[in-house]
């Protein structure tokens, strides 16, 4: 039977494909067994390890062809753990003497290893916790029969999940995903951002979707209407097949204008730049006509791995991106991590309120070595292109000065060591904390550029968690409260003679194109999938008229 569910469409387009249901963490069976059952339980455990080893070897084989040696090394470490004779012995003993079933015994043994490694003072060993946790999860999945099937994507896979974290989305084979559907999440959750970067449809906040979906079902995702159809009827299939064809044709048409600039009807050029989350997205950005990178989210470099990236490793990636962009501006945002974007190997303390907690520049100014390592890598890579360094979450001048001081220190150290550094690196900041938007004139004197982070700005102005779909209605980027702050930042920037752009989700939404042009933003940075539409939208705007419209909205609200 077909069922239609509604949610929030967070990117454009329609897709049809096969459901891959990604299950949340499984429940572990905890059962005491009869004495005569222990052999069977031991065999179950052994079989799950064999299965794990076999699966992992297949993945290693496949990924040798596709990805870096680094990732295969991690998988090989997982193999060593799974095959560890001490592990087997301990599990067997638990089953035999404590009469616990295989899942229970395995979970307890692995937990004891995790606890042991967590308590060691040695950094390397503490990092192994992530490896053991991963093995634990997969082996317990195998034992319970509730295996997450995320690794077995086929073409036109449509990922359905309760929620997807950044690390989980990163581990997916992106080329095979046709759409995302999540039960939780809002317009600016990670899934939404990734979907737009990949230019594929996504619907989030779909209540009840996990309950009615099963892997292998056929499904249609209509992100334009925020609709998901499980087991569509033949009529629905035909209707959507047409829609998909039209969308493909439209995309091809848009692409013809990709390499023309975004210029308004009265001749004002608006820079259309791309947001990227990894070096491999540069190609897509350029193919869509990006004139610069307006936001490179470097935290993805730090995620989905077992230890901090080395300075050299970071430098190499920054060099690649700068080189690929051939002198076009590349805005690299320094690390934006916090309790909501965790690293398995760097256990940040859980916070009551991560969005308002110790994150981004606040964390970096506490973890100065971590921050400096990134800054050094950036400075060393600077000779490869047009580097703009951007600090996130700046709220006070003091924070800005502290961050700038670290850049100065790093520069001096590197110069002494004889490393070449570009002379014309721009240092700027995100305007996303309301305090910075309000005091924009102070900040504009001290930086080379502004970039408005609309996601956080809107969230903080409305005091509404952007991941919480119950308050999704408060995501109101066009509300005069937000427009006034943006206006304030733009005026301050232009008075100081520095450029100001925007890199939040608002910047890529054609619904706001005339407002953004009217506000006077010099550059809009967005997911690569939005560039074509936005360029086209800009070409229909008269900037003078748009500016008058903005003025009237802002002053109307004064009454």
């Amino acid at each position, binding site marked *: 039977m077909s069922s239609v569910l509604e949610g929030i469409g967070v990117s454009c387009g329609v897709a049809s494909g096969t459901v891959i249901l990604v299950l949340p963490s499984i429940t572990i069976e905890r059962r005491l067994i009869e004495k005569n059952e222990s052999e069977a339980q031991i065999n179950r455990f052994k079989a799950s390890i064999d299965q794990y080893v076999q699966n992992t070897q297949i993945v290693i084989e496949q990924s040798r062809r596709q990805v870096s040696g680094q990732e295969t090394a991690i998988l090989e470490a997982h193999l060593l753990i799974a*095959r560890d004779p001490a*592990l087997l012995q301990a599990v067997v003993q638990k089953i035999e003497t404590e009469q616990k079933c295989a899942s229970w015994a395995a979970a307890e043994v692995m937990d004891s*290893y995790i606890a042991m490694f967590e308590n*060691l003072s040695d950094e390397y*060993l503490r990092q*192994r916790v992530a490896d053991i946790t991963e093995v634990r999860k997969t082996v317990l999945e195998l034992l319970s029969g509730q295996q997450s099937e995320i690794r077995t994507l086929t073409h036109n896979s449509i990922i359905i999940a309760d929620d997807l974290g950044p690390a989980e989305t990163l581990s997916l084979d992106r080329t095979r995903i046709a759409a995302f559907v999540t039960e939780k999440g809002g317009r600016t959750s990670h899934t939404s951002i990734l979907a737009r970067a990949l230019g594929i449809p996504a619907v989030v906040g779909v209540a009840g979707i996990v309950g009615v979906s099963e892997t292998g079902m056929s499904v249609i995702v209509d992100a334009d209407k925020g609709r998901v159809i499980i087991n569509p009827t033949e009529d629905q299939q035909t209707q959507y097949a047409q829609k998909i064809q039209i969308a493909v044709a439209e995309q091809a048409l848009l692409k013809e204008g990709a390499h023309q600039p975004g210029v308004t009807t009265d001749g004002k050029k608006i820079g259309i730049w791309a947001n990227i989350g990894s070096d491999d997205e540069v190609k897509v950005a350029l193919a869509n006509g990006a004139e610069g990178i307006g936001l490179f989210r470097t935290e993805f470099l730090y995620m989905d791995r077992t230890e901090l990236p080395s300075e050299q490793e970071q430098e190499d990636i920054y060099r690649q991106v700068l080189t690929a962009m051939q002198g076009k501006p590349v805005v690299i945002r320094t690390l934006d991590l916090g309790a909501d974007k965790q690293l398995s190997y760097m256990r940040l303390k859980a916070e009551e309120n991560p969005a308002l907690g110790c994150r981004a520049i606040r964390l970096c100014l506490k973890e100065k070595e971590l921050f400096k390592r990134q800054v050094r890598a950036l400075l060393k890579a600077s000779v490869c292109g047009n580097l703009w360094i951007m600090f996130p979450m700046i709220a006070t001048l003091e924070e800005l000065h502290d961050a700038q001081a670290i850049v100065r220190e790093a520069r001096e150290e590197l110069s002494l060591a004889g490393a070449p550094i570009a002379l014309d690196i721009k240092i700027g900041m995100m305007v996303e904390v309301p305090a910075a938007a309000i005091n924009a004139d102070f900040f504009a004197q001290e930086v080379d550029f502004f970039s408005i982070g609309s996601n956080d700005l809107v969230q903080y102005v409305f005091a509404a968690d952007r991941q919480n779909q119950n308050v999704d209605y408060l995501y109101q980027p066009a509300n005069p409260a937000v427009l006034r702050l943006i206006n304030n930042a733009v005026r301050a920037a232009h008075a100081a003679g520095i450029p100001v752009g925007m890199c939040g989700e608002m910047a890529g939404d054609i619904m706001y194109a005339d407002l953004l042009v009217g506000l006077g933003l010099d550059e809009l940075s967005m997911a690569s999938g939005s560039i074509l539409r936005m360029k086209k939208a800009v070409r229909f705007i008269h900037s003078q008229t748009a500016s008058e419209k903005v003025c009237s909205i802002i002053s109307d609200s004064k009454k």
Partner: protein
Amino acid sequence: MEVGKEVTVGCPEGIHARPAACLVRVANEYAGKITIHYQNQMIDAKSIMSILAAGIGHGAKIKVVVAGDAAEPVLEKIGQLLETGANL
């Protein structure tokens, strides 16, 4: 047959990280039993977790014992691996 040998750990960071993984890989290729005697512990060289947990540092004096067929060349290989820290 069982053969043993005293070894001073030469890997710069001890039997750790890559050397530990390397040791386990070599040990796994051998059908017999390989044990490391360190302080008062007897550690199974095929168990990555036991080796890591033992925390054998640079310069530690250990004894490697290999039991099984053709034990000599295996002992030689492992001894060299741990003494020189090379070829890891």
